[in-house]
């Protein structure tokens, strides 16, 4: 269940906090755990940001951040590749993330639209497929059915990314 909660859009910690809070103490629990998850960030960053703008001009701080910036880039690239490996998709699907990245970097299309397009395409595809299945209603073998579903999903991804590329 937690994995589903975490794959909903939004911040991991907030999703999890809301879910756990709700399970334990209902709506009030969710509200309290939400505040618990958000407030520390708000306060700490609030305190830092009041003085960071002045520090940034400081020579020592500039030196330090010259070292840190490329480090941050690596810290973003690494999890994306890790995520791909962890998702256990075969290397066949490597073109999808590469295509998506290329679209964002070169065509400057907002990531929000890419996600939207992917959602719409997936839902349409699923809807069409299951309408056909309902019509037939002859195939009761769920195992076969699951396999075909997976393949279709992969096609959808290709379609959606290709659409974005056009």
């Amino acid at each position, binding site marked *: 269940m937690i994995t589903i909660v975490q794959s909903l859009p939004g911040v*991991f910690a907030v999703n999890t906090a809301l879910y756990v809070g709700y399970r334990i103490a209902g709506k009030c629990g969710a509200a309290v755990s939400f505040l618990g998850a958000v407030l520390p*960030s708000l306060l700490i960053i609030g305190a830092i940001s009041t003085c960071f703008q002045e520090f940034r001009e400081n020579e020592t701080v500039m030196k330090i*951040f010259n070292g840190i910036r490329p*480090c941050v880039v690596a810290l973003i690239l690494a999890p994306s590749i890790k995520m791909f490996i962890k998702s256990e998709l075969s290397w066949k699907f490597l073109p999808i993330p590469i295509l998506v990245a290329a679209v964002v970097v070169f065509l400057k299309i907002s990531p929000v639209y890419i996600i939207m397009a992917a959602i719409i395409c997936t839902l349409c595809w699923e809807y069409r497929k299951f309408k056909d299945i309902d019509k037939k209603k002859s195939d009761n073998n769920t195992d076969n059915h699951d396999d075909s579903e997976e393949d279709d999903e992969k096609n959808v991804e290709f379609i959606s990314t290709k659409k974005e590329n056009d």
Partner: protein
Amino acid sequence: MYLKLFWSFFKIGLFGFGGGYGMISMIQFDVVDKNGWMTNSEFADILALSQMTPGPISINCATYIGYNQGGVIGAIFTTFALCLPTVLLMVAVITWLFKNKENHYVKALLASLNPIVVGLIFSAGVLMMNKENFIGFESVIICAIVFIATFFFKVNPIYLIIMSGIFGYFYY
């Protein structure tokens, strides 16, 4: 101004699949490319700060950008704008989700979004490889070492940030 901040982060919260890292590319797109609220190197600094400070990266980021643009009220606006879609979705969806864990729509969505989110995170990294952040070949070396350390040896990112900071202080 506040509305624009709110709308940007509401959108990011609504479509931010894949957690904090997935949101980075969206935040970067809206904040750096679209609205020009900050430069790419400022954004990199904020990411570093967000990673070092406790709390979720995306919330830290949102709070900082909000404060930068609109003071305390801006910070509160962006933070809650980022979380609001999640809260609404959780309230609306959670009971339904319990019953429909195996729903084929849900499964298909999660499966198809996965590689896309990977691509988005990767693009965020690629977009940050520019002259502002990479000021010389030393930067490339830092990037490569950090990548290897975190990818193969699973070194804690906070140590890596601190080490690169120390290196930057003595080298530059």
